[in-house]
């Protein structure tokens, strides 16, 4: 059987439940800002298209883009917290998923950078490109195309990490993307993004002092609620799709309970949104049910995030235990080896396993078993690069013996602080040896090098 991956041996800085709580909490903070950025961008894009026919909407799109400028940066920086926690809690699954999809995973950095730069270009060129609407909209569309793809990378990783039993069949990002659950989750996320942004629109456009010439703010508020209601309603299709495509490995009663609670709290929010669309338009502010809607949807998000975590916990429980057992067994064996103890066999030897080839079989000039100190030191420290009668990495001993004939001190000085005589050879590194060893090895080199020269006449000359 293959050895199991092992968790890291250093202890966690916080208890597992505490880290889990932080993970769920930080993740919600992060994802809300991501939702608003992605959903807001899509809504702004929609309004910019609408502005081609109804120019008043141009100002609305611009106003929404001002929000995104702030939320996109907060989304990134708030993502660091959950990343910290997931790195610690799920070291093996998370890193394994990252590595299996590595090339695309690291693309997150240049892609998000490019999307943000495009968003700035779009924002700061609004007046300059007023006569080139098509180009201006294209810039935003390009940024949004990237921002629609980024969640797929994250979801692919977060999904892949849940199923260690599938890891061996995954060769790159697209294999992992095609696992059953990824695309439904992406749909679920996109709907949530637009829904949250619709609510934000209802609030943003009904703030005191907000006005756009040619547009009634009450109408905008209504549009915000309509967007939120429609996308939230569609979650009743997307949600079950996510659940049905989840491998059954992580499903349990607690998870279903959390899901049901999430749905229960979403229902009144939907009803209140419906009422707000219908509400008399004269009232100022986002509507008297706005904060109730936010609170009940907030609870929905909390329960859904909890459900998601419960699934992860269940799907990975046995694997995490396996990684911990492997870590402990490895540490125990390692300690035993450090103490010089007898190591139990790891498993049956494979047929045809080769024993180590004896050191003496080196073909680059055989040297007899060490009988003196110089020879022992030479074998340990020098022989990897020098042999008696031919160039290996460095020059043959013959050449050394010729240069330093009768001058072992010269060899000793060179070994401690080598210079560089031949540019066609790699430079020799200093070898720190005690004086006795140096003296012995220098004498040995002169002896062996000299006798090799004597044996081979005329002396070989390197081209």
């Amino acid at each position, binding site marked *: 059987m293959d050895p199991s991956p092992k968790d890291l041996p250093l202890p966690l800085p916080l208890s597992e439940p505490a880290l889990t709580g932080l993970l769920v909490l930080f993740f919600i903070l992060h994802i809300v800002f991501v939702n608003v950025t992605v959903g807001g961008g899509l809504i702004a894009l929609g309004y910019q298209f609408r502005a081609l026919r109804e120019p008043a909407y141009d100002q609305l799109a611009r106003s929404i883009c001002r929000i995104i400028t702030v939320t996109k940066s907060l989304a990134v920086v708030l993502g660091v917290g959950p990343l910290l926690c997931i790195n610690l809690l799920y070291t093996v699954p998370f890193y394994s998923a990252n590595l299996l999809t590595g090339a695309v995973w690291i693309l997150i950095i240049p892609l998000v950078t490019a999307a943000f730069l495009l968003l700035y270009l779009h924002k700061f060129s609004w007046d300059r490109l007023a006569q080139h609407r098509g180009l201006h909209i294209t810039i935003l569309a390009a940024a949004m195309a990237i921002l629609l793809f980024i969640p797929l990378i994250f979801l692919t990783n977060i999904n892949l990490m849940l199923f260690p039993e599938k890891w061996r069949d995954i060769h790159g990002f697209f294999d992992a993307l095609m696992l059953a659950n990824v695309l439904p989750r992406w749909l679920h996320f996109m709907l949530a993004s637009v829904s949250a942004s619709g609510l934000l629109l209802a609030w943003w456009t009904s703030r005191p002092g907000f006005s756009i010439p040619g547009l009634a703010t009450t109408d905008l508020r209504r549009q915000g609620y309509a967007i939120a209601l429609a996308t939230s309603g569609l979650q009743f299709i997307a949600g079950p799709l996510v659940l049905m495509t989840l491998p059954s490995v992580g499903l349990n009663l607690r998870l279903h309970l959390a899901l049901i609670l999430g749905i229960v709290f979403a229902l009144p929010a939907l009803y209140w949104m419906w009422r707000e669309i219908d509400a008399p338009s004269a009232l100022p502010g986002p509507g008297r049910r706005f904060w109730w809607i936010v609170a009940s949807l907030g609870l929905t998000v909390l329960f859904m995030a909890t459900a998601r975590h419960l699934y992860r916990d269940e799907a990975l429980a046995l694997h995490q235990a396996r990684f911990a057992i492997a870590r402990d067994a490895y540490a125990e064996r390692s300690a035993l080896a450090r103490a010089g103890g007898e190591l139990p066999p790891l498993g049956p030897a494979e047929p*045809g396993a080769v024993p180590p080839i004896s050191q003496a079989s080196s073909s680059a000039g055989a040297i007899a078993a060490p009988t003196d100190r110089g020879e022992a030191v030479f074998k340990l420290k020098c022989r990897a690069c020098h042999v008696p009668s031919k160039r290996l990495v460095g020059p043959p001993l013959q050449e050394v013996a010729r240069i330093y004939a009768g001058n072992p001190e010269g060899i000793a000085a060179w070994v401690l602080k080598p210079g560089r005589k031949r540019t066609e050879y790699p430079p020799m590194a200093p070898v720190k040896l005690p004086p006795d060893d140096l003296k012995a090895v220098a004498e040995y080199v002169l002896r062996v090098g000299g006798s090799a020269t004597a044996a081979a006449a005329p002396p070989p000359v390197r081209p």
Partner: protein
Amino acid sequence: MDFPLFHLAYFGDRTLIAVIAILHVLINHAFAVGFIPLVVVLERQAAARGDAAGDALAKRFMGVAFVLTTTIGALTGVGIWLSTALINPEAIGSLLRVFFWAWFTEWLVFISEVALILAYYLTWDQWTGPRKAAHIRLGWTLAAFSWITMAIIVAILGFMLTPGSWASERGLFSGLLNPTYLPQLAFRTPLALAMAGCVGLALSVLFTERDSDLRHRTVRFCGLWTLVFLPFAAAGLVWWWASVPADLAQNLATALATQQAAAQSYVVLWTLLGLAGIVVAVAALAVIAPRRIGLTLAVIALVATCLELGWFERTREFLRKPWSVPGYLYANRFRAEDYPMLQRDGILAHAAWSPVRQVTAGNRLVAGRTVFDLACATCHTVDGLNGMRAILRTMYGPPPWDADAIAAYIATIHDSRFYMPPFPGNDTEREALGAWLAALGSPLTVAGKAP
């Protein structure tokens, strides 16, 4: 050993981290840590003079910093995490466990920094008149937070070079308060400020009318700013170098240049000194004759400071070799404490993703390649950067190469190349690795495909 292989066959794994991290540090130092104080001082001066054009210029300066730091700056910061997790998950995973609270604190500071940078730039035109003083205070707060994020991260960088008493105590603070921390901070802070002066020079030339008072005033100010902080950076660097332990300092020649050119590393040193001289000269010229500063000179000075900092990062990262965390984790991702076991069991037997468990007569080359992937590929490629074919050619001349000689060399590699970790596996694996490396030069076993 516990993770699937991710390998960049051409650029080399470490290049990915290097590119992302150096880009990050350049933006962070030149456009945030050093630059925000400069912008705030300019804003304050303009407010004191009642100079609307000066205020607008300060805002345009900040606009550049705003765009760069919230895009490339922020994303490369996250990118360091993502890339280190791909290249050396054992190292970043261990660091996270040791420094969780440091990173957690840094995260809170980082959130504040981003919120402040958004607030500072986006309220520039609203907080005017009586609120200008508050806006300037906002700027100083931002500058402080910017510096704190750097100050926390530098502690971890220092730890990776000199873990100090952590090796015995394994605590957060024993790791944070490591011997090279304060010297490195004392170097980076004034260097960032000096770099920001060079950025200021370039932006002044870009954003102001030629021969205008505003240009001369700003160019002279930025030149003076650079001149003031550069000597402190030099002093900080000397202090830092004095605090680097001797066993790491012996890597300096190779760290500055390459192994092949180690003997000529003084050339690099003189070049870096020369670059510093250029920066001083340009900054002095900016003070004495601001009208003589054009975009070319300003950019030369800026590029020179970037090269200095980039080279410092390379050198510092190289000095800690063969370690990722000295005394604990080697750069090859194996922990020192596990060597006695691994050199008996072999690394293949413990490698979750290896296709082979032990070396057999039939799988020598596959085993050798796997050993390479596990023990060497963090720093080496086959044909790309730091590629083995080129190295073998330099060492042994043109093929054929002798498998036994290579295997013998690997056994003592750490004796002669201080920046290389000892080979972690057992003798059979070392011989399989030697066989595979020798096979890289053989027409019969090209790329290790044939048995």
